[in-house]
């Protein structure tokens, strides 16, 4: 039992933090919010150069060929930075589907798209039929879409995309109209079901990882404000009502974190409990982030309720991702159902 990240994994996180500290300031996030795509091609190129974008792409296709345990700290860091780029969608979700899919059509897709993705020349978006709008679809070069249990891959330009506006200005969902065809199909039937289930588990873990970073940033920002802001002649952080709000937010984050890391490990290791672990991770991380957002707003008071203050950039990410890929209640129900199956089969829980 060894829960520690390796030096290389920690170093990679430090590199990403150095990059985002320089190029992903709140002012730059705001610029992205009003840009055409919601994210910055310059930053994406830098991320690709660093190897982050192609982290899950096999080395033969120009990537690093690494797994989710290597990626999880970077996703968390992306949340902390408020990174607007589609790292979750491309690197954590889209690429693994392409890598894992069986068959000749998948071979062709891999050959065409993986090197370009690793090089930062193509971004991916992923959507299921249940989604009204697909996040990041408007600027994605390749869409990986589930329809009727089958998985398809469709170039963005072959679809009709109607942009929707979202509260999180970087999210950029679009309603995607397209016709499934033999040419778009990657895989169907049982093989597709396996891929879709794995995609949903990775999405739960991956969005959970981003949410950890979002919560971390909100708590740090709010604690700093509580030290600076003076009322009744003292910093508001000296009042127990404020202290307890922040302590609770930190405790929720602290106990969500190892659950997300464990989910990443279980998914990489093909652990039979991985789906349940991913759901636990998403449930805990969603509550940690929405709880942190609530505390951040309350402790900041009216200034936190403004557009001008930066806290909303992270609060809105918390709300969007907590609701994405199943909210906390959805995942708790899923955990309960899976564990009860085990109880009925007489397995130890």
């Amino acid at each position, binding site marked *: 039992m060894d*829960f520690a990240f390796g030096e290389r994994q920690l170093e990679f996180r430090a590199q990403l933090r150095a990059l985002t500290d320089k190029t992903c300031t709140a002012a730059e996030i705001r610029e992205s919010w009003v840009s055409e795509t919601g994210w910055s091609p310059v930053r994406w190129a830098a991320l690709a150069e660093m190897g982050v974008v192609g982290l899950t792409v096999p080395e033969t296709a120009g990537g690093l060929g690494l797994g989710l345990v290597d990626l999880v700290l970077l996703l968390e860091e992306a949340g902390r930075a408020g990174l607007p780029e589609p790292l979750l969608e491309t690197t954590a979700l889209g690429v693994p589907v392409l890598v894992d899919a069986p068959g000749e059509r998948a071979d062709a897709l891999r050959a065409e798209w993986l090197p370009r993705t690793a090089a930062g020349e193509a971004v991916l978006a992923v959507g299921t039929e249940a989604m009204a709008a697909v996040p990041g679809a408007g600027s994605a070069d390749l869409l990986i879409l589930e329809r009727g249990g089958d998985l398809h891959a469709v170039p963005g330009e072959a679809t009709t995309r109607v942009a929707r506006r979202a509260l999180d200005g970087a999210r950029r969902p679009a309603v995607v109209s397209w016709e499934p065809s033999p040419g778009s199909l990657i895989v169907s039937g049982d093989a597709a079901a396996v891929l879709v289930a794995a995609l949903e588990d990775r999405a739960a873990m991956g969005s959970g990882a981003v949410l950890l970073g979002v919560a971390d940033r909100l708590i740090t920002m709010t604690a700093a404000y509580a030290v600076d802001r003076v009322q009744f002649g003292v910093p508001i952080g*000296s009042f127990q009502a404020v202290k307890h709000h922040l302590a609770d937010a930190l405790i929720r984050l602290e106990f969500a974190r190892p659950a997300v890391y464990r989910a990443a490990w279980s998914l990489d290791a093909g652990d039979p409990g991985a789906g349940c672990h991913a759901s636990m991770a998403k449930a*805990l991380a969603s509550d940690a982030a929405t709880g942190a957002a609530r505390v951040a707003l309350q402790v900041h008071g009216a200034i936190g309720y403004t557009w001008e203050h930066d806290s909303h950039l992270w609060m809105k990410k918390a709300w969007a991702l907590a609701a994405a890929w199943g909210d906390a209640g959805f995942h708790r129900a899923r955990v309960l159902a899976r564990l009860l199956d085990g*109880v009925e089969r007489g397995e130890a829980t």
Partner: protein
Amino acid sequence: MDLRFTERQEEFRLEARAWLEANVPTAANGRGPLPSLDTAAGFEAHRAWEKAMSDARWSVVSWPEEFGGRGVGLMEWLIFEEEYYRAGAPTRVSQNGIFLLAPTLFEFGTPAQQARFLPSMASAEVIWCQGWSEPDAGSDLAAIRSRAEWRGGGDDGGTVGDDSGTWVLNGQKTWCSRGAFADWVFGLFRTDPEAQRHRGLTYFLVPMDAPGVTVRPIAQLDGETGFAEVFFEDVVVPGDQVLGTVNQGWSVAMATAGSERGLSLRSPARYTEAAGRLLSLYARRRADDPAGAGRVADEVARAVVDAEAYRLHTYWTATRVLAGGSVGPEASMNKVFWSETDLAIHEAAMRLLGEDAGLLGDDGTPGPWLDGFLFALAGPIYAGTNEIQRNVVAERVLGLPRP
């Protein structure tokens, strides 16, 4: 990162499991369950069980062999705990000693003190209770007034605190868990009457049968004498029963408190085992009353997820500790989380049981869920209330200003 146990750890698990399955007193083998440890008879039955564990060297697996342990590491201790609770074994009557005082003895005790106190603690021949709170010093522990005066020793009166001299203790301690039946008490006394607050305190080890010690048992919420008041009237204590340095008792006590809030007192196995039972209870209630059970489903799931989160966090922390890290004020986050998780598990069970939850058995004692619920209610209070823990988290982890 590799979240599998090693082969040796798995072997250790199986060895512990085999011994526990053969020896734990249970209803199934007719030797249990033991009567409540908060009764005189139950206390002795628990002592006998822990003596049996000790004879097979299972009572304190992580201690060095010379003191009765197996010298295994932190991960193995956590594995043992998982097996202990999996086997349905009883609550440890020695818990104040083995989980709280022992880590403090290992850190601050002299070799002579370790040799004197640890083996009898491991074998449950001496069971310890904690003497910290006083009627006017609860959350505000530094307000304690019980005092110890130096009476000197030898021909020249000795140096204050040296082993040849003696101290005289006076005062009152309260809420001493297991104090009604325990053999020894560890506690904080004021040794410098001029010093304020947390300065001038000293950590003493005192036999409960010393002349001048009077115990008044207190009935708890469940009606049993789980804790006691302890009065000290001119109790003479030799100098070698001071743990750590005279007048530095606060820092010694905080090490004990760290154990109490952190890793050692509440291993996650206790909660994952209860969460497993909660799932089984939920499955049974759902079969009888799907709609009724459904109204509690989210609470059940939340409690189960939190128990697992606590388990993972413990292994995460253990990895950090084994790599040379230490657990500081973060222990306060632990304490809030395990106590509230324990309560959440039992509250969900109470809701599933509905009106029947409050029924006592024919012998007038609560069943496991009600007993566990009443015990869980104490969690957010003992070991420093959760409000105090939140203050610690805010001030010492997040850096918010003290009032």
